């Protein structure tokens, strides 16, 4: 098990500082009575005037405009929200079933995404996703908190069944983005799972498979055992079955991709043979328009 700071190499952490996580800064009109205090990383910008309505804060009345126009007008401000990223790491047993590399890579990707959010001046929350919901592991609002977040991720071990739908539908703190690092080997409907309240940030979904899951070899007659449910499936892993598996994987992946894109997010498929930097690079790179 790697320790927290060792989860990501220092030079890689340094390079992450030069990357920009494409988080959309959610903006919204300041509701009447809304918070005016500056939040971490957020600023208030004037947007427009509107007619005064009973209940408006008298302090927002633009008396200069009243002097010029002879009617009460209220200043409208927009508050730039500090980006907040919730990194959900699938910690079900399947993440550790096909070798340690998959789980290690998943934690590295999750840590990198969280660090990216912090480097972007935002807040990152690392959470584990298992059946029954998700549990926050650590939060980092500054670079100094990153090592703690990394340690929390490094201490995490996979196990037990998973439930992506319930994990993604978990409580959200305002307009935060969600990054899911998972193998997505879950029967959940991607669109339903990714359904988010209005104003929520775009999702980032990284499907991380073991190399053996992405390209299963011919093992002949085998008996597969589900790492989470214990179910068994005797089969002959011949070329025909491998081809059908590849088709099923492609279709499954495509469903998730479409659901993510429909939600305005970004979908990256990778396997544990790919370096973490390459995976993260594909996340921050603008999507290729086809």
């Amino acid at each position: 098990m790697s320790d927290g700071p060792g989860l990501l190499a220092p030079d890689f952490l340094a390079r992450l500082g030069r990357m920009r996580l494409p988080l959309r800064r959610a903006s919204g009109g300041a509701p009447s009575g809304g918070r005016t205090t500056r939040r971490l990383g957020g600023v208030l910008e004037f947007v427009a005037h509107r007619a005064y309505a009973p209940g408006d804060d008298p302090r927002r009345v633009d008396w200069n405009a009243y002097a010029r126009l002879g009617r009460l007008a209220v200043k409208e401000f927009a508050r730039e929200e500090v980006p907040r990223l919730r990194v959900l790491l699938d910690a079900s047993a399947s993440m550790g079933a096909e070798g340690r590399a998959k789980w290690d890579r998943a934690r590295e990707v999750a840590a990198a995404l969280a660090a990216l959010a912090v480097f972007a001046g935002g807040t990152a929350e690392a959470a584990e996703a298992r059946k029954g919901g998700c549990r926050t592991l650590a939060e980092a609002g500054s670079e100094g908190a990153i090592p703690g977040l990394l340690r929390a991720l490094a201490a995490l071990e996979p196990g037990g069944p998973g439930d992506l739908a319930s994990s993604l539908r978990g409580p959200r703190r305002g307009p935060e983005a969600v990054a899911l690092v998972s193998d997505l080997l879950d029967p959940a409907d991607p669109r339903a799972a990714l359904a988010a309240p209005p104003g929520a940030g775009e999702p980032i979904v990284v499907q991380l498979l073991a190399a053996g899951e992405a390209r299963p070899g011919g093992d002949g007659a085998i008996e597969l055992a589900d790492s989470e449910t214990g179910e068994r499936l005797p089969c002959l892993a011949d070329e025909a079955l491998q081809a059908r598996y590849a088709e099923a994987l492609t279709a499954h992946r495509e469903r998730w991709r479409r659901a993510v894109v429909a939600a305005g997010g970004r979908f990256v498929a990778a396997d544990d043979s790919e370096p973490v930097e390459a995976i993260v690079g594909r996340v921050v790179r603008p999507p290729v328009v086809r």
Partner: protein
Amino acid sequence: MTFLAPEGLLALLAVPALLLLRLAGARRRARIAGSLLLWRRAAAGRPAERGSRLPPPADLALEAAALAAAALALGDPASPRAEAGETRLVVVLDRTASMAARAPDGRTAWDRALSALEARLGGVPPGARVTLVAVPGIPGGVVEGPPLEVLRAARTAGPAASSGDLLAARLPSRDDRTVLLVTDRLPALAAGDPTEVLAAGVPLPNAAVTALRAERADGALRVFAAVANLSEAAADLRLSVRVADPEGPGTDRALRCGPGEEVGVTLEIPGAAGAHAIVAIVSPGGALDVDDRLRAPVGDGRTGPVVWNGPDAPALRRALRAALGPATEFAAGAPADAALHVFHREVPPTLPDGPTLLVDPVGAPPGLDWTVGSGAPVAAAGPWEAALRATGLPAAAPAATGASPSPPAGAEVLLRAGGRGAVAFVFPRREGPLAVVGLPAAGGWQLAPAYPVFWGRLVRRLVARTAGTTPRVASLDRAESDLRAAGSGHREGTPGPRPAPAAPLSGRPLLAWLAAALLALRLSRRA
């Protein structure tokens, strides 16, 4: 079915070993998968996988069969030709007169032969081809067909009143056929002869007519016959004499013959004075393979005494009396009208004129010079050679030495002993035929009264020869086994020595090819 290399069958253990290996290898390897989600989708629509990954049954069967065939080939299975379904069987069925001999139980040798043949054919595959050659032949000729058809044809026949050459009837057979000789006799088969002999199994005493002579007297035919019993027990026999040329009436006589005894019988057949030949048969008889039906010409009787020189030989005397007549006199000296001069264990300085018989001339002193007839010298190198050289004939080359003398050129063989060569010759002499009988004592043969049949045969032929009758070669040939039977103590009615079986058909090449073919088929399926 037998295995010529049974240790090769240990290779059969490889068959269960193969199955065990296959079963062990058929256990599925367990593999932990992250999730069966995609695998179930991939496997949807495919037939359910079985619990093991044994190769297809056809492949496994091919492998096991190839291995078994190879192991069996190592064992070198062989099948006797008679048991091979594809081999053909030639049945030579003896239906000579002796097959009509009736045993005390009322069954004839023919009945027993058919029973034995039926049992033997019962073991032949129904699809096998069997050829029936009857001797003498049957009206339908040679019958060929499945076993049942051949058996049916044999049942329609019966014993004939004539004789035949059983061994010559085997000629149509080929090497790939099994020859089955069904007879009541002991055939004279050469060593290694593959012929299978199916003895009729007639439990008859070892009896035969040893001498037969007929004379015309008062409008009837007076018959003198001798019957010998070589069995170890006394036998109640019946002598039957019939006029053979032309076929006419006959008469029977019951007689009791002790063990090793030879009994002389005088019979009369009324109204048969015109006969030229008679035939006699004793039943139950069939003791020997020669002349169960003894045929003899009707003569006027031989006159003159038999001049006997040397120690007595009762068996020979009885044989001479039976052949020449019961009134035959035995005299000493050298009567001029002697019917026969016998020198037993003696060699005279000069051979007398007239028919002469030298019997076992072991008494000749080595190196003795003596003349024969014209006075030609004889250089005797040994007892047997001396007797031969005593003929003085120009063609009388030195004979072979030892226990297997070979007759010199010009000599006519009277009797042969199986494996011992000729033991009796007759030389044509102007002064009268000279017969020489030598039984090499060193080889275990000697003149003994235990062989009355032998002496009876010998004397009968000698008398016939001296009377100008040429012996039948076939009879002489068959006399070999007469002597052999007498010497070996063989008794009729018991199966004779089984000939060496035919070379077995080896199944190794076939199995080797089969194994190779199965292996090739298996490999082609894998490809």
